């Protein structure tokens, strides 16, 4: 089994227009996916732009992250187990995030 990282990007405007009932339905769908046996870990990132560190002429500097309110932001990640990319993509394809206008990036973890 290989492990895959799913990076979930979301469009902040996409969820604002849902009704309370629709949001509850969405949460239930998301959680049903999270509870599947192939999920190893799931974490949500704090809703801030984060910091990006770079070294400029040998001097390390921190700046605010790349996310602005209008752009798709990295909202959270999952670590899942799958036999290969095909399977990982198939599993991620069923994630409700896509139905709610989000984007999922699938990356395999490097095996030593």
């Amino acid at each position, binding site marked *: 089994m290989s492990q895959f990282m799913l990076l979930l990007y979301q469009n902040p405007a996409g969820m604002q227009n849902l009704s309370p*009932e629709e949001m*509850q339905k969405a949460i239930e769908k998301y959680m049903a996916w999270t509870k599947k046996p192939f999920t190893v870990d799931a974490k949500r990132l704090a809703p801030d732009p984060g910091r990006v560190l770079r070294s400029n002429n040998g001097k390390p500097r921190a700046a605010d992250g790349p996310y602005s309110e209008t752009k798709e932001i990295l909202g959270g990640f999952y670590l899942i187990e799958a036999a290969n990319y095909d399977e990982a993509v198939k599993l991620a394809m069923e994630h409700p995030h896509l139905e709610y206008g989000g984007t999922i990036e699938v990356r395999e973890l490097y095996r030593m």
Partner: protein
Amino acid sequence: MPSVQTGLLLEHLFRRQAGRITAHLTRLLGPAQLDLAEEAVQEAMVRAMETWPYQGVPDNPIAWLFRVAHNAAIDAVRRGRVAAEKQAPLLAELVRASVRAPDDPGIEDQLRDDELRMIFMCCHPAIPHEARIALSLKTVGGFSVREIARAFLADDRAIAQRLVRAKRQILESRLSLAMPATCELPERLDSVMETIYFMFNEGYAAHEGQDLVRQDLCCEALRLARLLAASSVAAPKVHALTALIALNTARVPARTDEAGDLVLLEDQDRSRWDQKLIALGFHHFDLSISGDEVSQYHVQAALAATYARYDGLHAIDWNLILELFDQLASTGSPVVLLNRAVAVERVHGPERALEEIERLSEAPKIHRYYLYLAVRGHLLLKLERRAEAAACFRQALECPCSEPERRFLRRKLAEC
């Protein structure tokens, strides 16, 4: 309606909590800040949607939503959403309240009270009729504009405008969340009951559309009626209203068969009646009997109780039903008179019933009303006046009505 845990969360948890938290925040902030309260609630729910799927549902989801909405309201006030001179007192009020909530054992009573006050404000006679239902569904019921529009078969913009007008009226008439004074109470209570009754009727008497949201209207009407019935302002007629909604809603699942065709009472599969709702309905029906007043709600509850008692073994007591309809007939409502005609037919025969509805033939637009034409056609068919009956059913088929009703009419036409 009793809550059911179908998935991870109680059914309609978000919708219900949206109403309660909005009511709570509006009491703290004042009716002028209703929009701010609604936005804070929306923000809390979006936050839940963003975090719960990853971290799991909090141990106490209701307290979580409550706290996050509360904090969102505080942030909004700090960001200057309200006039500068009001900022400090509002913040003080919010902060003071957040210390109490939500572990305080008294909070449940407080929230019920907030919700009740909100219903009374949304149904204030100063707000136009149609807007009262929309406003109640939005602020107390936690429905979105789109959901309300779907339930009313209206477009989103029309509903949004109705809400804007209602909110403007709240400001202009300086409506408050204070419970009505004793002298005002009868009028205000009638207004609340009427709104709940229309909400129920809108869902129950659906002529078009199969949408589930219309059933949700019956459930929301029942929830509000129960809230009212459990409060200090409950009168026997409030119990009658609750009973009539519960007993009629209980039979909704059996009104259509699997193909979606209409099923008449005597042919209904009674195992599909909701027994919990029937028990609840009879409980409130018993409570409604105290006191001297016999309201319209009492009569309608008695009718619903007679139907709900039908066991398939004993004949339906049409004499009793006719007597009850006679009490309602003074309203002059065409719908009541048409339903009454069905009882007249059972007791006195089709000829008498036909004479009775002839009185309606002068009413404006009645010849475009499918129920009038369907009942008339039905009676003519019983009297073997087949050609006239067929003409009625054909005319009825041209009127606005739902697909199951249309199929029913076609079946009747084929019998002519």
